[in-house]
Structure formats: structure tokens, C-alpha cells
């Protein structure tokens, strides 16, 4: 169950070179939203758009392919996408919302649908929730320290950031590559991530990440009826190239291993909270 419920899982990438150029992995998120927008499955998508500061995302409501393209790539810092969830149904006038986010953000979306506290008119307007895999996240200052101090690279000059093969990587516009071991980054993780028990966005309609698939490709779980509907239509329209997950390396076994590691480690943190103090503990949101 560490991978959640799903109907199918494949390795995939977009067939649109323009999307692939700036995408983090297989351009799944950007391609799926672009298709859904075109088909009217959604009428806007909440994505992590660019802001005034380099690599600091700002949630935006994209209603065009150009806006989706501008939001490509992973920003390893918080992007409070849910902050636009209600507003999307208000001044933006959306009826069918697409939203991308980390597993915790997918949880927020589902919770708002089932327990809409101050979330009037949100529950029935979520049309496509695309989750990304997430091991942990960093506050912006943490990211700054990792890139500028440890990798010794100016954030402004970074073209892509990535976590993979046990390392944190920064690629610059001018072609330099810097990397640091992940153990250096641990102290910069946001503490809230240490009680997170979801790696592959179990609650999304479709979830995707890099782990399991070769470079330039993504691992994709199709989870819900809603997700399957959008995904199969997009496949039919030729949006994606796919391969059975069994035929790619490293494949699902690695995804499962990493998911198990995350959950085991964080469950332990959670358990320790119960006896954190002398004769009293810290709150457990899962109880």
C-alpha cells in the first residue's frame, strides 16, 4: 500500500518537444494540463508559476499553454498552491479546476472536498488533481543556502535543480554542473515534512515523478476514474509516449523502496512525538 491505490502505472513522456525542453522529467504535468485545457476538461490550472525571486515559485492560475510552460520544472521550495483553490472559483470564475501539487497538497484538496471548512463551492469544482512525488521540501532560505553556499552557484544562473541518485544537483545556464550529497541538505528540510507518510501522491487523480523511469521520462500512476478518463483521452490524442513500467530501469521496485523508506522513517518520527516530553507528548494529526 505504500504506493496507494491505482488502476495502472506506466513510464511516459510528452510528445511535445516544446514542453519537454523545460520540463523537469517527462513533462507529464504540463502536457496533461495543456491537453485538459484544450479539451475543456479543466478551464484553468493552479500551478507553481515564476515570481520576482529566482527559483521561488508563486501559485498562479494558468488558463493558457504559455502560462503552463512558464511553470515547468521543479522548484524545491514551498509553493502554497492551495491558497488559490477557493479564489479560483471566485474572481477567476472557474468551474473546472486543475491543480498540481505535492502529496500534502493533494491531501489538502481531498480534505477540502470532504470537509469543506470555509471552502464553499470548492468540492464539486475539482476536475483534475495531478500529484507529484515528493520525498521532502525546503524553505526558500534553505534552498538558497544549498545552492549558493554548498553548490557555490548563483540562484539566478541556475537552469535546473534536481534530486537524484543520492545527490542534489544544480545545472547552470552556461553548462556547469554542481552537486552535493543529500546528507548535507538534511538540516535544511522543512520540519513538517518529517511527519509526512505519502511519497507518490496517493490521493491524486494522476500522480507522477522521476523515480523509476529513465532520464527524460516519468513514472505515472493513474489512480481515479477521473484521472483515467483524462489520461486515456490524452493517450488517444497522441499526447504521450508510453512504455510498460516493467520494461524500464530501475522500474517500480525502486519507487516502492523509496516510498517504504520515507514512510518508515517518518512513522518513527511520528511515534516519537507521543513521548517527546516528560510525561507528555506532541500532537499527532493522524489520530
Amino acid at each position, binding site marked *: 500500500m505504500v504506493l496507494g491505490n491505482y488502476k495502472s502505472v506506466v513510464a511516459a513522456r510528452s510528445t511535445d518537444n516544446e514542453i519537454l525542453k523545460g520540463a523537469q522529467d517527462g513533462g507529464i504535468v504540463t502536457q496533461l494540463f495543456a491537453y485538459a485545457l484544450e479539451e475543456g476538461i479543466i*478551464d484553468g490550472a493552479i500551478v507553481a508559476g515564476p515570481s520576482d525571486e529566482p527559483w521561488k515559485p508563486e501559485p498562479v492560475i494558468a*488558463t493558457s499553454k504559455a502560462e503552463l510552460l512558464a511553470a515547468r520544472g521543479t522548484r524545491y521550495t514551498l509553493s502554497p498552491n492551495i491558497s488559490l483553490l477557493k479564489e479560483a*472559483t*471566485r*474572481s*477567476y*470564475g*472557474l468551474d473546472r479546476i486543475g491543480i498540481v501539487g505535492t502529496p500534502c497538497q493533494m491531501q489538502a484538496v481531498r480534505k477540502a472536498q470532504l470537509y469543506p471548512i470555509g471552502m*464553499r*463551492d470548492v468540492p464539486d469544482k475539482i476536475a483534475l488533481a495531478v500529484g507529484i512525488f515528493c520525498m521532502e521540501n525546503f524553505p526558500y532560505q534553505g534552498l538558497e543556502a544549498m545552492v549558493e553556499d554548498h553548490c557555490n552557484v548563483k540562484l539566478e544562473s541556475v537552469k535546473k535543480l534536481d534530486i537524484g541518485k543520492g545527490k542534489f544537483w544544480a545545472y547552470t545556464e552556461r553548462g556547469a554542473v554542481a552537486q552535493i550529497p543529500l546528507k548535507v541538505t538534511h538540516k535544511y528540510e522543512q520540519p513538517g515534512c518529517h511527519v509526512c507518510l505519502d511519497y507518490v501522491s496517493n490521493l491524486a487523480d494522476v500522480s507522477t515523478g522521476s523515480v523509476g523511469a529513465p532520464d527524460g521520462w516519468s513514472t505515472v500512476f493513474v489512480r481515479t476514474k477521473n484521472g483515467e478518463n483524462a489520461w486515456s483521452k490524452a493517450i488517444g490524442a497522441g499526447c504521450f509516449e508510453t512504455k510498460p513500467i516493467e520494461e524500464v530501469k530501475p522500474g517500480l521496485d525502486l519507487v516502492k523502496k523509496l516510498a517504504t523508506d520515507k514512510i518508515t522513517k517518518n512513522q518513527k518520527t511520528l511515534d516519537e512525538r507521543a513521548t517527546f516530553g516528560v510525561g507528555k507528548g506532541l500532537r499527532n494529526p493522524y489520530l
Partner: protein
Amino acid sequence: MSKVVEISPTTRHEGHTKLVLKINDEGIVERGDWLSLTPVRGIEKLAVGKSMHQVPKIASRVCGICPIAHTLAATEAMEASVGCYVPEDAMLLRYILQCANRLHSHALHNILSLPDMYLPGTDTKINPFTPEEPVRSVALRIQKLREVGQTVGEIVGGEAIHPSNPRVGGMYKNITPRAREKIYDLAKEALPLARDHMEFMISVFKNFQNRDTVEVGGMEVPVPDTFGFHNQGYMATAPVYGSSSLDDDPTWFPERWTEVRPWDWYMGETEIDYDEPNYPIGGTTPAGNKAWPQMEACMGVPLYDGQPVEVGPRARMVQYRNFDLKGAMGLQIARQMEYMDCIYGMMEAADALNTSGKVLADEIPQGDGTLGWAANEAPRGSDVHLVKVKDGRVRWYSLLVPTTWNFPTCSRALEGAPWQLAEVIVRAYDPCVSCATHMLVVNEDKRIVAQKLIE
């Protein structure tokens, strides 16, 4: 020999009130006291010292049916006090919000009024919850109109109940072209429904007034020709929106307003010596109980030119449209006639709106303690907020809400009606009693006389 009967609580309106009625041998009201029993919440008092940005959000919570009125009146009173002029596109958004709220509120009130009424040409009373036609279609139409009102309110106001978008200086956000189109589509969908509905409701109210008798709890009760008539004046500040002390030609005048205590206006202690166990549902207050309106009334009695006045849809129609129907049903009919204004109003304002225009004033002064006021024509009438803001904080605050104006006027309108129909008159005013339960009472010299109540 007159007797006293009491209906407590009254039903099918917002809030908590009762009727203490002195009646003659025929059961006709000689003197009626309609009073609020809703506990005082003291918004005016607790606003003092808080920021001008927070107080309108608190004032909104006075009422969940017309929160738009309190939000806008409070925000605009702050703006009037500090002298802040709001950009035009912000005003257009507020105007749309106003129309949307009135649409929903009037439609909601239909549900409350219909059970007193008959299907025209029959002796069948209307139960809005019946699955049978033609009432079922009427109920669905009402729900649709409310849905349109609330959805449009949500788009421009950020929230249908307690709008989040208005702020001192304008609005937090303009809307997108898509949102504007959605408003337009919803309004166009509602337009024919509203027209049919208005005509249906007017025929229902006319039919009531034309009946010789109606049935209440098994009693046949005559409907007088002058049912719900009164000789008080009217007060309205605009056909749709309102006015404020920033206007070149304001349409409300603070110097004409005074307020008296319930003590000066309501009956003293009296014993209930008539009861009717068949009055639906649960009977009237048993004989032998005591009532003391002077002491029990939880509100002040505001006067305009020294008199109680009527506010609301008819007051607006009388002042701006030469409307001349009197009585309880005249008031109901005037309300239905406002449906079309709501819908055309939101369409026209949406047309005029520039969705990329700015919606926040460049400068928001912090205020020097000048008195500012704003009147918003709430669904139930003029909602006037008065405030003094200094250094961004509220120093003094007072609300004169529609139902407060209407309490004494409606009380007079009860005279001459069979007591069993007193509630039908009350409902014609669409009372909103949590709105009306207000907190500072000032006398002719504007001195606070009933502050003790809330300390």
C-alpha cells in the same frame, strides 16, 4: 373591553421577536407592539478601538442574509470618515454584489411568505415544500434565483455569505474576463425566471388582498381592505445602491435622525388575558402570563423627523418610482417589483466593468476623527452606518439597520387587523431581527442613554 394576546415567538422571519397585541371584542388589534427579543451582541461597542479594516468584517457577521449590506455600509462609512475615494471599477463590483444579494434575499423571503398565501383562485394554501405542481416549479425557480444571486455574489464579493473581497479603499481583486462572462450568463439565465416569478408572486399577493376571509388555525378571519395600512412616512436613499457623506448630494441626513428608548415608545407591564391554543403551531402565550414590552425590547427606536418611518422596497418605490400601493400586500408587491432591477443592474454593471481596471485607491488616509456615514439600500431598506475613524482606528460607531427603522412603523401598521393576521403584516416587512438588535440608544441630543444594556 380590550384584551391582551401574545404571539411568542413569531416565526418565518430572521431572528427572535414577539407580538404583544391589545385587541377588541372582535379580535381586532387596537394597539400592537412588535419587539425584538434577540440578545444584544454589542457590535457597536466592541468595534471601538479596532482597526477600520477589521470592523466591516465583524459588522458583516451581524446577519448572514444581508451581510453584503453591513459589509458595504461599514466599509463605505470608514471611507467616508477618512475621505477615501474608491476607483470606479471597485464601485461597479460592489454594485454587482449589491444586486446579487438583493436577488437572493428577496427570493428567500418568498419561501417565508408563501405559506400564508393561497394559490390564486383556490382555497389551497401554498406549502413551498410540497412535491406537487404548480408549487414545486415555483420552489425550484426560487432556488435557481437564489443560486444565481449567491454565485454572482461569490464571484464579485469573494464569498456569498460574508463577502471577503470588499476592503477600505476598494476591493482586493478585480475579476477575470471569464468571471465576467459567467456573471452575464447567469444573469441571462435568471432573467426570464425572475420575470415569471415576479408576475406569479404579485398575483398571489393581490389574490390575498382580494379575499374576504382567510383561514388561520381553523378560524375564518376577515381580511380588511386597509390590511397593514399605516400613516408613517418613508425613508430611502437610492433605488438600488445607497449614499454616503462623500457624495456631492447625499440623500440621507444625520441631523434628521433621533432615537428614543423602547421605554418611551412601547407598552408598559401588562397581563395576558386572552389565549388561543389553536393558533398554529403550539398556540399563543397562555393567559395569566405577564408581558412588559418597554423592558423586554432589545433595540432602540430610531425616528426620522421625529417619526417612525418605513424603509425597504416600498419606501424605495415610493421615493423613486411613484409607487402608491399601501398596506402589507402593497409592500410585498413592491418587493417583487425589484427583481428585474437586480438582474438588469448586474448585467449593466458587468458591461461597464473594465476587468483590468484598478480596484484599490492609491492612497488610503488614516482619518482624523471626522464623522462619516454611509447608507446601503439593503434588501430590507436603508442600512446606515456612522463612524469616526482616527489614525486607522474606529473611535465611535453606530448602526441604524432597516428592521430597526421598521419595528415601530410595523407596530402601528398592525392596528385594525385581526390579531390572527398580525404575523402576516410583520412578514411583509421581511424582518431581519439579528440586524435590528442594535446596541447604542441615543436621545434627541444624540446622548447615549441605554449604554448600560451592553456593559
